[in-house]
């Protein structure tokens, strides 16, 4: 069984991939910022219903970000 050779990307190609990943991470961070402000607003209004779902969603974004960063550091 032969392994498929890994294609070597040029630096320009790698940079494009890095930009793509960066954009995605940035969108997720902005989403987390919105979640934090919306949750704080609800909490100050005595509404605790959104607190735990928002924490879960934010933690999910963090996991996704960590995965993207890992793929970026491997590249």
């Amino acid at each position, binding site marked *: 069984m032969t392994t*498929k*050779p*890994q*294609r*070597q990307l*040029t*630096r*320009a190609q*790698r*940079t494009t991939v*890095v*930009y793509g*990943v*960066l954009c995605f*991470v*940035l969108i*997720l*961070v902005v989403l*987390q*910022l919105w*979640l*934090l402000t919306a*949750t*704080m*607003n*609800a*909490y*100050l*209004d*005595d509404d*605790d219903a959104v*607190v*735990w779902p*928002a*924490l879960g969603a*934010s*933690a999910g*974004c*963090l996991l996704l*970000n*960590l995965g*993207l*960063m890992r793929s*970026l*550091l491997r590249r």
Partner: protein
Amino acid sequence: MPDDPQTRFEQDRAIDPRIDSPEREGLTGTTRGNIYEPATDPEDVTVAPDHRPMTAQPRWRRDFAIDWPEDDYVARRDFAKFLVLISGAFVAGQAWIAANSLIRERRAPPGRKRIASLAALPLGSATMFAYPGDHDPCLLIRTRDGKLLAYSQKCTHLSCAVVPEIDRGILRCPCHEGIFELATGRNLAGPPPRPLPAVELEVVGDEIFAAGVKERTR
């Protein structure tokens, strides 16, 4: 056996040796042969910021040459790390809100507290009381039409004491000219970002009791 069917079958199925040649691994099309080799991208060649050749560069730059394009590339990766750090900080903030929410849920309700009697509070007047703690100043207001209202006295901007102006129908914060509506406690003007917390009242006979505090954002 030149006409052995098994041998003929294996010859037909065998990989063309040209495909596995060093320059054409796995390729049958017209792709360039060195596609799996490290590319010679113009960016791969380090050029000093002044674009002069390395031999014309000062000694320190020759000794500590920096790969400028690679430096940019690493900076982007560091930016990604920084973004992920911010992402972690946001999750920590969410966890802090969740922990406070749990503490608030488990905290015993403040309980009922007598704050004044109707007889001692004429129409169009106000009095101060502390609720739920001794350091939580509140205002009890009796409007000209006999309605009872109670709010926290701490302005939601910077916790200055608000002053009731019953005839104008407002509560005014003198520190930064914050204005709240007397009838609802909502922030009308100035820097306060939220309405005043409302104190729930119960009237039993002639006595007025505070029975809870309602935090609001609108």
